[in-house]
């Protein structure tokens, strides 16, 4: 009976176990979000600046990564890198894979955001005596980021959801631990999946509230 499952699925042990998984999910997400915002911005700016050869090269690599399935990148980092002598613990392997993939997605958003800024803003600043870097830091990037907040947040929301793909390399995150719990008893399947659904929803809804607040604050 399903109702029976609802009560017995959430024994203290199971709840603690799932919460531990939530911790891993949130940990991977937060670290990857911060790193991919940094690297995504750098890569996006490099592509925007059209530095001869270098920007094209970075853009090409970025295109390749963006068009790969995330799961393949996770497999590559966890299973292939050790063959090349690079051994990463599973948590950091996931962070590296997520950061690589999300940086390339964010780079496209950053590049697009920069390209949406009126050329007059650059010319006004350059004619006013500002260096290229000052123009970017004080004039162009603040305007571009304001426009980029909605797409960036929706990308970060997929990042949080995509951490569940790491169950493919048996990272003990929330979705994986859910599987372990309902493997004990098939009556647990529905209640456990419902609870995991709720938790993902709350996490991402929280993110979208932050986005709304930031958008309002900056607009």
């Amino acid at each position, binding site marked *: 009976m399903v109702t029976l499952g609802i009560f017995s699925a959430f024994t203290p042990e199971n709840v603690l176990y799932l919460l531990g998984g939530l911790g891993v999910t949130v940990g991977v997400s937060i670290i990857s979000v911060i790193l991919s915002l940094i690297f995504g911005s750098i890569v996006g700016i490099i592509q925007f600046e059209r530095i001869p050869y270098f920007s094209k090269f970075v853009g090409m690599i970025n295109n390749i990564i963006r068009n790969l399935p995330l799961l393949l990148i996770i497999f590559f980092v966890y299973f292939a890198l050790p063959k090349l002598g690079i051994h990463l613990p599973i948590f950091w392997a996931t962070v590296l894979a997520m950061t690589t993939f999300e940086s390339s997605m964010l780079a496209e958003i950053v590049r697009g955001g920069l390209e949406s800024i*009126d050329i*007059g*803003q650059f*010319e*006004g*600043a*350059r*004619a*006013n*005596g*500002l*260096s290229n870097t*000052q123009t970017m830091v*004080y*004039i162009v990037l*603040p*305007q571009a980021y*304001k426009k980029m907040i909605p797409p960036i947040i929706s990308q970060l929301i997929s990042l949080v959801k995509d951490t569940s793909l790491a169950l493919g390399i048996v990272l003990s995150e929330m979705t994986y631990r859910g599987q372990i719990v309902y493997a004990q008893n098939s009556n647990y399947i529905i209640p456990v999946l419902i609870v995991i659904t709720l938790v993902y929803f709350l996490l991402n809804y929280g993110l979208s509230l932050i986005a709304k607040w930031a958008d309002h604050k900056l607009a």
Partner: protein
Amino acid sequence: MSMIEFNNVEKYYGNFHALKNINLQIDEGETVVLIGPSGSGKSTLIRTVNGLEEIQEGNLLVNGFDLHDPKTDMNRIRKNVGMVFQHFNLYSNKTTLENVMLAPRLVLKRDEAENKKIAMELLEKVGLADKAANMPSELSGGQKQRAAIARSLAMQPKALLFDEPTSALDPEMIGDVLDVMRDIAKDSSMTMLVVTHEMSFAKAVADRVIFMADGHILEDSSTKEFFEKPKEPRAQKFLSQVEQH
């Protein structure tokens, strides 16, 4: 001493020959108006003076530095040469006051209290002291352009370039902007190069008028000479067309 000097300058956009064998000298303190039909290369010419457009041949000396020399530090040129654009190009993420204060703070490292004092004096001068805290989006076209002029003046440049400063304005806004420009022209040390269609402004303020067509400078005469008896047939035709309205 010449502030701006073009020697056999050629400029191409791909295959399009935009500036053809330009030779021109503008002395320190002079006010020169550049006129001509659209597509004649006036805007391109003025934009080469602060390096917004590159030249392909010849040399272009601004304040003693050759812009065609790759070793020339473009930022150093721009510190001394301000520019006012047709579409204002105010920083849309900064208040009017911040628009005026930003470059002196970052580029000249001007002391903050002094910077604010100078900026407020300039806003006062262009009639915008009460708009200091407003964002550019809250200003009218004429106010935006006067703010942009204050922003250029705050750098205390040796030369100011005006690229059709009144062309995007409603007719009733034009007078205020031209008044401000007239005041600046009175300052005998400021070199001004102005692309405009305002013939009455040219007549009243310019020392010299340059007439361009198809990328060539066709006529370079004193203001009086140009408006009384233009030498070039194309300049005569242009003047008769502009003066019809």
